[in-house]
């Protein structure tokens, strides 16, 4: 390949243009992560407004109209703005270094798929200030509430979703091409680190499922503006068609948000147990079977919509079956820790909290899978507790664990261990205080997405709100740790953690602007 000597050794350009024109996977990874942190705080502040209103019965902070806008935007921003970009950012940073590639296969596409996001979310957030307010129909935007009865800002919401979808699809294409073509010569598929494996499978899920969301949102657009009636019963359409299409995208989407987390935990737990990951091949098989099964379970979100008996039974069985591979993964992590030599730095604390709390979320998920019982759980706070237990200690804690784990590699300095532990404990206590009482109020009969509730739910909601504020403000500690670590601190060695294995630790820290210009040869140990 003609190596233009000019690009050989010059560092990044100076000033703003570096970030706008960058094709370097490390810069783009950092931009994704900073963008996701920003969205995490915006979505988090909306969650605090929701919790402020729900502190006690009665309407004291916001009107129901605005409350519905907050719940909708909180869901959308957290799912599409905070969790997914964070995982894409971690993939951009780490996948090339883990497989020994100089950069992502399509760097300009990488830059483009990042720079779509700020514009998509500016458009989404600007709908808050429009006449009629922001979308108020829930992050699941069921028709006809989101088509015939929606505020005029629904069109901006539709285009923002299109742009976020395009960004995710392009990111997924980029990762598949990189992983399939640019692995170091000796690295066969079964020698790849598990984080790369889970991201490869997630990328396939993304490509299969994002177009369905784009299609559904386009059908909404034509329903609202061009007089079609896909989801309008009056013209021969069917609102339940919307739910089928949305959840055919929706359920693989929630697996898209958790599979990279499995990958991260499978990198961290072996490092701090100083022991190879237990059952590496079965972890890969379990991830792929989760991905395959995730396409067959979507209607467990619709058990009360009036499915025929045959449908309810089929989706109940398929959903129960998905908990088997997930269980296998949890058993593998516990087996990895068993008879290891454990130390409890911050990434490991987050990983253990992930395993424990995500499993609780998994169990409430299994209870929800039972369709007769789902008639009592559906659309109550029990469901809210379930998906927050799967998402907050699941996706968010694994992103934080990954950040603490790789921060020394990115910045070249160790983070402040004491502040890291404070951040962990505040988040851990805050999280449980917020979401565990939700199981109780949900079972006792409190429906979802209501700004005001009857008296018997009062005390648990008070505890939830207190926990919510504790968890919310604890995240400021996270920002402090990151900023301090970027500015300075104890120098980090190339291999920052004693048990760490993998190609990313063979480069010095901070990782130079261009790594693995020439493909590395693999260290000889059998497993990553």
């Amino acid at each position, binding site marked *: 390949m003609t190596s233009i000597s000019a690009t050989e050794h010059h560092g990044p350009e100076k000033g703003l243009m570096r970030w706008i024109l960058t094709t370097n996977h490390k810069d783009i990874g950092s931009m994704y992560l900073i963008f996701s942190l920003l969205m995490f705080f915006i979505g988090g502040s909306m969650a605090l407004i929701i919790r402020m209103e729900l502190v006690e019965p009665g309407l004291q902070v916001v009107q129901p109209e605005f409350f519905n806008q907050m719940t909708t935007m909180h869901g959308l921003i957290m799912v599409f703005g905070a969790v997914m970009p964070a995982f894409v950012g971690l993939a951009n940073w780490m996948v090339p270094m883990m497989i020994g590639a100089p950069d992502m296969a399509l760097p300009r596409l990488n830059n483009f798929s990042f720079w779509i996001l700020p514009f998509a979310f500016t458009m989404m957030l600007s709908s808050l200030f429009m006449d009629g307010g922001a979308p108020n129909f829930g992050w699941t935007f069921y028709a006809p509430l989101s088509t015939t009865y929606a505020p005029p800002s629904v069109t901006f919401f539709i285009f923002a979703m299109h742009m976020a979808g395009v960004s995710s699809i392009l990111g997924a294409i980029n990762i598949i091409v990189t992983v399939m073509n640019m692995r170091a010569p000796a690295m066969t598929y079964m020698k790849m680190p598990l984080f790369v494996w889970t991201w490869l499978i997630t990328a396939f899920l993304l490509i299969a499922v994002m177009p369905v969301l784009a299609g559904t949102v386009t059908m909404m657009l034509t329903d609202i503006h061009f007089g079609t009636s896909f989801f309008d019963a*009056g*013209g*021969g359409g069917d609102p339940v068609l919307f739910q089928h299409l949305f959840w055919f995208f929706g359920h693989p989407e929630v697996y898209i948000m958790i599979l990279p987390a499995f990958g991260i935990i499978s990198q961290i737990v072996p490092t701090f147990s100083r022991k190879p990951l237990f059952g590496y091949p079965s972890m890969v098989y379990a991830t792929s079977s989760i991905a395959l099964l995730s396409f067959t379970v979507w209607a467990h979100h619709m058990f009360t919509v009036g499915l025929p008996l045959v449908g309810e039974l089929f989706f109940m069985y398929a959903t129960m079956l998905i908990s088997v591979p997930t269980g296998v993964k949890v058993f593998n992590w516990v087996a990895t820790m068993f008879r290891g030599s454990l130390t409890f730095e911050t990434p490991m604390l987050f990983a253990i909290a992930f395993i424990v709390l995500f499993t609780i979320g998994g169990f409430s998920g299994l209870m929800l899978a039972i369709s007769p019982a789902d008639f009592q759980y559906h659309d109550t706070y029990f469901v809210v507790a379930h998906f927050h237990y799967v998402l907050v200690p699941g996706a968010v804690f694994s992103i934080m664990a990954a950040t603490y784990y790789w921060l020394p590699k990115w910045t070249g300095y160790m983070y402040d261990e004491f502040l890291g532990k404070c951040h962990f404990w505040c988040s851990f206590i805050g999280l449980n205080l917020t979401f565990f009482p939700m199981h109780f109020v949900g079972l006792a009969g409190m429906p979802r997405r209501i700004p005001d509730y009857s008296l018997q739910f009062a005390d648990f909601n008070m505890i939830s709100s207190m926990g919510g504020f504790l968890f919310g403000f604890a995240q400021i500690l996270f920002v402090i740790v990151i900023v301090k670590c970027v500015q300075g601190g104890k120098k980090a060695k190339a291999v920052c953690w004693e048990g760490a294995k993998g190609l990313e630790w063979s480069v010095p820290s901070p990782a130079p602007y261009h790594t693995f210009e020439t493909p590395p040869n693999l260290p000889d140990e059998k497993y990553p």
Partner: protein
Amino acid sequence: MHKKLILQLSTACLGMFLFGFALVPLYDVFCEITGLNGKVDLVESKKKYHAGVDETRLIKVQFIANRNENMPWKFSAQNKEVVLHPGANGQAIFYVKNTTQREMIGQAIVSVSPSASAKYFHKTQCFCFERQALKAGQEESIGVVFSIDPDIPEEITKMTLSYTFFDITDAIAER
């Protein structure tokens, strides 16, 4: 030199786009076969039964008249219910009146409960097959002639036929 590739990709994109629009009839066919969510055919069915009228069983069919939110017409079922043998023809008359001062067009959508029985419900003649245009203050008696397939499962002895009138005056004007 990539002409062939560009051609393939653009036809694939066009195909995907058209598939999106083919979804609606596909969904109807899918519902038709599985009888999902009580979606009954809006088209005249010329089904002839081999077994003829099944004297042994009686099925009660109830009629419900609903209106969508912005449909001001008066719309009610004359006969509340009909008891008939599977295979025999049944009839229901509905009264509809346009109480507004302007000409309006309505479209009736039919749905059957329990949804498992939708597959066995055939309408030979129904006001939901075409749009109903009513002038200001005009009132009409409109009807449906239907029959129930004899091989409907034994345990279904009561069915409810629900008509919902939708105001599509603006939708028509818009097109």
